[in-house]
């Protein structure tokens, strides 16, 4: 008797639970449909990546059937539009790296100091002014930085160094440096503020000055986060397009002189796209070959940055 009753009760409970779990009818279907829609939206991001890689690889493959990769990656003359044609990407890479290094020389020291100032020194009132100002600087479109490079920075450079050309790598590097400055400073600040108070208090208790606390205790503690900010900013500089297209020029020559006009990978892609290049031609494929090179550069740097941030998080959480 007793076991039968128990199983009856159990059955009833189970039926109740089932009904609760999976209410039949339109409500349940709506619920599932929405869930799948949301999943689709999230999966779309994977599709984007697959699309980017597929498109770049496909067109670059077509390109490398006509031009040998050896010529592409080791050639020092880039002249895809004029006879005799030549497809050596080195000048574009050197141009890009010149802009990146120059921008880094400006933004890294300056940005780190601003980050240190904001996290360790600034009063609340100063922060209330400086933070929005930096946010504005970060929100200015890159084409505006291009204008700034062409009409303000270059004329100023030419006052001091008359040999500087109308379009030159230096001015491109300077404006890109200004552009990535807020990125460095805000990421550095985040990394520095994440350092626990106890470290600072310990250092103060041992009699350290504020400089010693920030430079010898807090800064090294936040180092991997700070390095991540540098890497991210440099990767942004590599992919920067409009400012360098306007300020640094369109002449792909192999030079290390910042006073001369150069061309970056991004500027070349823009140059070709402004003309009407039909699909299937080698010119059309070059922009994908250059694009995949650019993509590889930034991808490596981003992965590095994500690793650094992860390491930093492991230490302080």
């Amino acid at each position, binding site marked *: 008797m007793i076991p039968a009753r128990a199983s009856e009760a159990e059955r009833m409970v189970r039926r109740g639970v089932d009904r609760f779990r999976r209410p039949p009818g339109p409500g349940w279907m709506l619920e599932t449909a929405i869930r799948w829609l*949301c999943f689709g939206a*999230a999966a779309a991001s994977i599709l984007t990546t697959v699309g980017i890689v597929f498109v770049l690889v496909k067109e670059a493959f077509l390109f490398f059937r006509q031009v040998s990769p050896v010529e592409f990656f080791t050639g020092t003359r880039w002249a895809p539009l004029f006879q005799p044609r030549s497809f050596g990407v080195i000048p574009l890479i050197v141009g890009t790296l010149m802009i990146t290094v120059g921008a880094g020389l400006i933004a890294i020291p300056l940005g780190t100091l601003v980050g240190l100032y904001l996290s360790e*020194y600034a009063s609340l009132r100063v922060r209330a002014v400086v933070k929005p100002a930096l946010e*504005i600087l970060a929100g200015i*479109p890159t084409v505006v930085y291009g204008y*700034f490079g062409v009409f303000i920075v270059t004329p100023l450079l030419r006052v001091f160094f008359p040999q500087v050309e109308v379009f030159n790598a230096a001015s491109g590097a300077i404006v890109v440096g200004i552009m990535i400055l807020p990125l460095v400073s805000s990421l550095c600040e985040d990394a520095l503020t994440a350092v626990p108070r106890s470290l600072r208090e310990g250092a103060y208790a041992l009699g350290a000055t504020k400089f010693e606390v920030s430079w010898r205790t807090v800064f090294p503690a936040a180092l991997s986060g700070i390095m991540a900010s540098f890497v991210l900013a440099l990767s942004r500089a590599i992919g920067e397009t409009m400012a360098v297209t306007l300020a640094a020029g369109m002449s792909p020559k192999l030079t290390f002189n910042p006073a001369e006009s150069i061309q970056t990978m991004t500027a070349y892609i823009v140059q070709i796209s402004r003309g009407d290049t039909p699909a299937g031609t080698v010119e059309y494929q070059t922009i994908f070959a250059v694009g995949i090179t650019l*993509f590889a550069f930034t991808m490596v740097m981003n992965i590095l940055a994500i690793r650094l941030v992860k390491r930093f998080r492991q230490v302080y959480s």
Partner: protein
Amino acid sequence: MSIERYRKRLTARGVKDLLFTNLCFVATLVGIFLLVVLLYSVFRDGRQRLSWEFLNSFPSRFPEKAGIKSALFGSLWVVVLTGAIAVPTGIAAAIYLEEFQRRRTWLTELIQVNISNLAGVPSIVYGLLGLAVFVRWMSLDRSVISGALTMALLILPMLITVSQEALKAVPDSYREGSLALGATQWQTIYRQVLPAALPGILTGVILSLSRALGETAPLILIGAVSFVRFVPENLGSSFTVLPIQIFNWTSQPQKGFQEAAAAGIIVLLVVLLSLNAAAIYLRHRASRHA
């Protein structure tokens, strides 16, 4: 160590401390100074050209007659369409990752890593994607819709990340309370979690749309032309946007076009700064209520 030497070292350390404080301060001043110079020089160059005429005329070969009507309308079309595509998708993706699938699986982990990687892809690469997929493969041509689709892909990672942050900030007690009262999961999300996360999400939406408004490179690849003497009429129209117009005028040699470029930049910056101000206001209001 004698007391003399100790005193000397103490002074030296004090001097270093003072120097470093000032160095940091000066670096910050330099940053602000650069912003002021940038804004001032653009304002000085473009002020005279700003007029109703300028806003309401089409581009022209003569600098003094050139205006930004087609660029303004083009930008409006692209931003509105981009928003219409990207905002629902971005929020839905964030809801999936934060609400429906809260337990981390390999799939969500993959999506998450993928989103942070996408955020670091240069905008011009999205342009290459749009050119190959939307313009050529789907033969949407050099149209407003191709531009908007490309821009939507570009801002999606940012939108998803910001919406996720906003959803994370909603306390679990809201969800538990709603579920305990018998609401289904979607009812909980739609009636409790989303309204609570709305200010944060809106801030993110505004910031991503202002990014779309200022982007140039992907649209140049899509083939937004710079000399457009008409306003887009439908999704298939060719178009130009404000940053491309500015880019084009900046690369012209005549002085008149430089002024036109500066005036265009003023218009663009005024729009962007108002959007930013709106975002800051929203964030402020949200933090007051929380």
